C-alpha cells in the first residue's frame, strides 16, 4: 500500500494529475478502510485529503452555506451555521454511526461512497444542495445532490476528480428536518429515512421532501409535499400525507422483500414530520 498526504489544493491537483488512474482518495476512511482490510491482495495507492485546510472549512458566503468536503459529521452536528441554515444536515449527521465514526467520517466521503443508506444525502437534497467537484486541471463542475449518485456505490465522480465542497443555498424563513429508522436507536444503518424543508410562515413557498435508503439516490415524495403544503396553508390531512409517503415507497421498490416493512415505517417518520411541522406552526 502506498499513501500520500498533500497539504494544499495545488499539491493535490498535481498528485491527481500525475497518477490519476490508480489513486483512491481517503478522508475519514470509515468506508474505505473496511474495503482495504477486506482486500489485502489489492495494491492501494491512497491520497489522504485531511491535511488540506481549505477542504474542511465551513463558511457562510453570499447567501450560501459552504461546507468543505472533509468536514466531519461531528463538525456538521455542532457547527452553528449548519444547525441554523441546514438543520436537516445537522440532524442527519448526528444520527450517523457512533461518536467515533462521526469524528472521522466526512460529508464528502459520505457522498463519494454513494451508499443508498447514507443519511446526510436526502438531507442535502431537501435543501437543494450542490456538490462542487474539481478536477486535477482545476476545472470546477457543480452537481445537484439529487443526481450525484448514479447507482449502487457509483457517482458522477470521475477519476482524477474530487469533491471540494457542498454548497447549500440560504433561504429566508426556511426550516428543515430529518429522521431515520434503523434496527435500534443509535449506531444503526438506516432502513429508511426522511428529510424535509419547508417555510412555515410563507404558505406558497415550495416544500421539499426526500426519502432515503429505498433507491440509490434520494427519492422525492411529490404527493406528500403537496399535502404538507396544505397543512402550512391551513388545511391538510395527516392520513393522506402518510398514505402519499407510503405510496412513493411502494412505487419506488415494487416487489422488493423489504417493501412491506418500509411502506409502513415511512408512515412512522411521516407522523413525526407532520407533528413537528404542526408544532412549528403553532
Amino acid at each position: 500500500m502506498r499513501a500520500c498526504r498533500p497539504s494544499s489544493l495545488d499539491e493535490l491537483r498535481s498528485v491527481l494529475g500525475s497518477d490519476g488512474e490508480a489513486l483512491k482518495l481517503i478522508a475519514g476512511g470509515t468506508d474505505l478502510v473496511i474495503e482495504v482490510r477486506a482486500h489485502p491482495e489489492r495494491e492501494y495507492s491512497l491520497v489522504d485529503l485531511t491535511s488540506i485546510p481549505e477542504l474542511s472549512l465551513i463558511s457562510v458566503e453570499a447567501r450560501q452555506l459552504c461546507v468543505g468536503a472533509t468536514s466531519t459529521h461531528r463538525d456538521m452536528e455542532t457547527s452553528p451555521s449548519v444547525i441554523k441554515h441546514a438543520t436537516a444536515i445537522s440532524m442527519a449527521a448526528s444520527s450517523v454511526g457512533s461518536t467515533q465514526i462521526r469524528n472521522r467520517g466526512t460529508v464528502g466521503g459520505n457522498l463519494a461512497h454513494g451508499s443508498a443508506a447514507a443519511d446526510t444525502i436526502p438531507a442535502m437534497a431537501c435543501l437543494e444542495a450542490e456538490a462542487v467537484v474539481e478536477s486535477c486541471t482545476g476545472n470546477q463542475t457543480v452537481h445537484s445532490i439529487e443526481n450525484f449518485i448514479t447507482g449502487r456505490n457509483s457517482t458522477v465522480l470521475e477519476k482524477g476528480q474530487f469533491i471540494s465542497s457542498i454548497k447549500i443555498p440560504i433561504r429566508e424563513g426556511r426550516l428543515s428536518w430529518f429522521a431515520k429508522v434503523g434496527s435500534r436507536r443509535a449506531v444503526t444503518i438506516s432502513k429508511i429515512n426522511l428529510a424535509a424543508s419547508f417555510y412555515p410562515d410563507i404558505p406558497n413557498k415550495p416544500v421539499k421532501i426526500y426519502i432515503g435508503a429505498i433507491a440509490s439516490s434520494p427519492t422525492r415524495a411529490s404527493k406528500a409535499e403537496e399535502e404538507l403544503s396544505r397543512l402550512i396553508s391551513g388545511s391538510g390531512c395527516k392520513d393522506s400525507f402518510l398514505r402519499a409517503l407510503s405510496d412513493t415507497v411502494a412505487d419506488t421498490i415494487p416487489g422488493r422483500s423489504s417493501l412491506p416493512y418500509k411502506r409502513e415505517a415511512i408512515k412512522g417518520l411521516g407522523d413525526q414530520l407532520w407533528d413537528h411541522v404542526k408544532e412549528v406552526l403553532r
Partner: protein
Amino acid sequence: MSSVANGKVLSIDSSKALKVPGVIKIYTPEDDPGISFNSAVFLPDQTDRRDERVFTDRPIFVGDAIGAVLAETDQAARKAVALIKVEYEEYEPVIDPVKALSAQSFREGHPQVIEGKISYGEGAPKDAISFETTVATPKIHHGAMENHVCQSYMDYGDVLVVESPCQMIFTVRYALSVLFKKPVNRIRVVKAPMGGTFGGKQEAVLEPACALMTLDTGRPVRLSMDRRECIIGTRTRAASVGKVTTFLDDQGYFLHRDIDVISDVGAYATGGHRVTMAMGKKASRLYRIPSQTFKGHTTFTNTTPNGACRGYGSPQIHTMTEIHIDLLARHLNFDPVDIRMKNLVYPGDLDPTGAPPLGNARIRDCLAIGVESFRWYDRVNMVNNGRYRKGVGLACCTHGNGYYGSPYPDFLSMAMRFCEDGSILVNAGLHELGNGTTTTIGQIVAEVLDLSPDMIHVTEADSQTAPSDVGCVASRVTYVCGACALELAEKLKARFISQISQVLDEPREKILLRDGTVITRSGEAFSYGDMVCRIAKTLRQEVGDYLHYAPDKNPASFGVHLAEVEVDTMTGLVRVTDFMAVHDVGKAINPKLLNGQIYGGVQMGIGMAISEELTYDRKGQPKNSSLSRYHMINAPDMPPVEVILVEENEPGGPFGAKSIGEICTVPTSAAVINAVNRALGTSLTDLPLVPERIIKALRG
C-alpha cells in the same frame, strides 16, 4: 475458510500466495492429521460424534477451516490467503432446522438427527385442559470483546505449549493429544488472559490448527481471527424451535407437560446434543409438574456450529416455557403471577427425574419480591392506545451449580501456601473469563485467613503446573471451586495455628489470626510473614496445604426478570424502558461483580429478544457477519436495571453462595417478549422481535 456452505475442495492453487514475501508455508487438507475429533470432548468415554477435521476437504459451512497460511507477519498471511484460489464442487446446503430433520446427512457416516428423551410421571391425563405454543429462538453470536486467538510454541525441546484464552484447558489438551498422538504430559496448555468468552471459547476451535503448524515447523505460531471470522467461523448459540403443551386442572395446577424441541446445532456435532439435553434437564426444576416428557431432536444444518453459550440451552428452554405460560394464562384467563405461584417449586424440593435435589430454592421469594417492588399490579393494566404502547412482562427461571449429577465428573484440586512475606499463593486451575473468578476466590480465602484480599494471588490454569480443574463452565466456579477454596483455607488455617502453637509453645485455642497478624495469649503480635519464616526455620515446614474437592450437591439457582417495554406501532421498534432482576444467589460474595454479571446478562437477553439473529441466505452465506449488520443492544438501548438479591444461604456453597453468571441471561428474553405481547395484545413467539416482525403482526 470455506466460501461455500456444502461442498468438496477440488483443487487449491497456492502459486501466487507462495510468492508473497514473508510466507513460510501454506497448509491444505493434505496436511490434516487424518484423525477426526470433537472439539468439546475432554474424556475418551464421551460419545459425542468425532466429525471435525483440522483442515477439511469437505467443508460443510461457510467459514469451515480448509487450510492456513503461516507467514512472518499478519499482513503477509492475510494477503496470501486472499490470493489462494480454491475450486469447489458445490452441493445443496441444508439451512432450515425443521427441514433438516428429514434432510440427507452431509456429515458422511454420521446421523442427521440425534434424538434424546427425558420423561417421568404417568403421562397426559385424559380429560384435562391443555394449551400448546410453539416458540422459535435465534442463532446467536457470543459477541465477546476479544475475537478468538491463540499461540503456540515448543519448549524444553519436546513440550508443545499452547497459550489460549479458553475456558477448559483440559479439553484443549485432550483434543491436541488425540490429534497429534503426543504424550499428554508433553502438551502444556496455559490459560491466557482473555477479553470475554460467554461460552464461545469453551471448545478447542483454533488451537488444533495453531499447534499443527508449530509441531510441523518448530516455530512459535499465533493464530487470530477478526470479527467476521469470529462470527462465521467459531461457535454460536443453537437456534431452537420448541413446542410446549401443558395439561392443567381448572384451578391452574399443572398436571403434565410435553416439550418437543428441535435444536439446530449447525454443521458439526461439537457439544451440540449436550445443549439439547441440557434444555430438558432444566424443565423439571422450576415448577412442580407431576409428569413430563421432553423430547430433543438435534439437527444439523450447513451453518456455523453451535456450542456452549451463556446458559447452555437454559435461555432457549425458559424462553419457550415462560412465553408459553404467559400465553396460556391469557388464553385460559389465569393471572400470570398467580398461576406461576401455584406451581413453582419450594425449598427442599426434589427433581422428579432423579437429578440432584433443588436445595434452598427461593424462586417463590424472588417472584413475590419482584411483583411487589416492580409495582407489577399497578403497571399490568396500563391504558394503551396511540402510537407508542407500553406493556410489562415477567419470567422465572432456574439454572445449575456445576456438573455434579451429570455424566461429566465434577472435581478439582487446589494448593494454597503462605509466602515468606505473609502473602498467599493459591495454586489453582482456574480460568478467569473477565467475570471476577480469581477476585472472588481470593476474597473467600482472605475472609477465612483474615487478611487483605490484595495479599492473595490466585493462579489460572496451566496443565503442567496447576492442579486439575474441569474448567470455568457450567456455572460451577463460585459454588464448587469457591467451596474448595473455603475448605482448603480453613484447613490451611488449622495447620498454620498448629504450627504456630508448636513454635511458640502456646495452646492452639489461644492463638488468634487478625488482619495479617498472629496474636498470642500474652498479647504478643507477629506478622504472618515473620511467623512463616519462624516455622520454616524451627519446624522445617512449609505453611501450605492441598485439597482434593468433589461436590456432592448441585442445587438450583433461581431468578425472576420483570421488563417494561414501549413499542412504536408505526416503525415496529421495541424499547425496553425499565427492568428489574431478582435473583436467588444464596449469598453475594462480591455484590459489585455480581451486579455486573446481571447487567450484562440482561443486555444479552434483550438482544436475543429483539435484535440478535445470525441468518444465512439460501446458499448458506452468512447475511450479518459484521457488528454493523448483527445488532447487539448498545448503551442507548439499555434500560435502567434494578437488581434485588435474595440471600437465604445455599448449603454446600462458600458462605452460602451459588451461581449467577449464566442464569442472569436466562429469563430476560421471555420477560421482554411477554411485555411486548401484553403491550400489543399479540401472541408473538418468533424471536427476535425485529421491527419487521412487529409490523407484520400489527398489519398482517
